[in-house]
């Protein structure tokens, strides 16, 4: 029987990887066409999907961060990503 935490970690990991792939495509669009929207989208997607996964499953355990600090880091990452997208769509 697979542990619940493993299943949720795998789901988060898949989301993080797909996020990284979509962000890479958007970044390529930014480099090729100079589209600021695509650049912001790339930053936003990484900050919303990949960084939270790294904080929760890599940095948190590695640096022995408290749960509060990990959550704060994740939420700050979300906010920065959303601000990046907000700035170009304003």
């Amino acid at each position, binding site marked *: 029987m697979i542990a619940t935490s493993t299943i949720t970690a795998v*789901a988060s990991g898949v989301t993080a990887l797909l996020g990284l792939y979509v962000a890479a495509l958007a970044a390529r669009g930014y480099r090729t066409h100079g589209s600021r929207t695509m650049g912001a989208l790339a930053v936003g997607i990484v900050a919303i999907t990949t960084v939270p996964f790294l904080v*929760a499953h890599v940095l948190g355990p590695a640096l022995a961060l408290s749960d509060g600090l990990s959550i704060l880091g994740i939420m700050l990452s979300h906010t920065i990503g959303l601000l990046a997208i*907000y700035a170009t*769509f304003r």
Partner: protein
Amino acid sequence: MIAHTSPGMTGHTTAADALARAGAETVMGGTSEQIAGAVHAMATAAGSEALGPLPAVSSTVGGSTVVALAAILTFFVAVGLSIVVTYQVVQGYRQTRARPFLFLAVGIFLLAPAPMLLRFVLANATSVPFAVRSLTAAGAELLGLLCILYTVYQR
């Protein structure tokens, strides 16, 4: 992140303990999952302090109350911002009627506000198990990413 105490070990529950425990109990399966738990725990702690000390179930490494409150505040800022961003993209679609904009709007909604609100509501208003809440939120994020992927391919 959970450090269980030895059997029979007891202590007193304070708001800080409850906040810390909420963070630990949700074990990094999601993001706003933990915040939702922390908010719920804060309300519980307020009640428990009025009733007197409760036996502690486990000791945790949740961090200080200031950090927990900052995290909760940042959560609400992120939710508000995600709704504003989604609204902006929807406005963009209404002006241009471009199909990629529609998918981008749906994608951003499923990626940002939907999982946050889903976790928050399911964790506080219902008794849905943690795994179901977490997988539902992850599913919404994946669908959102697929919608954004479509947009990126179109441009």
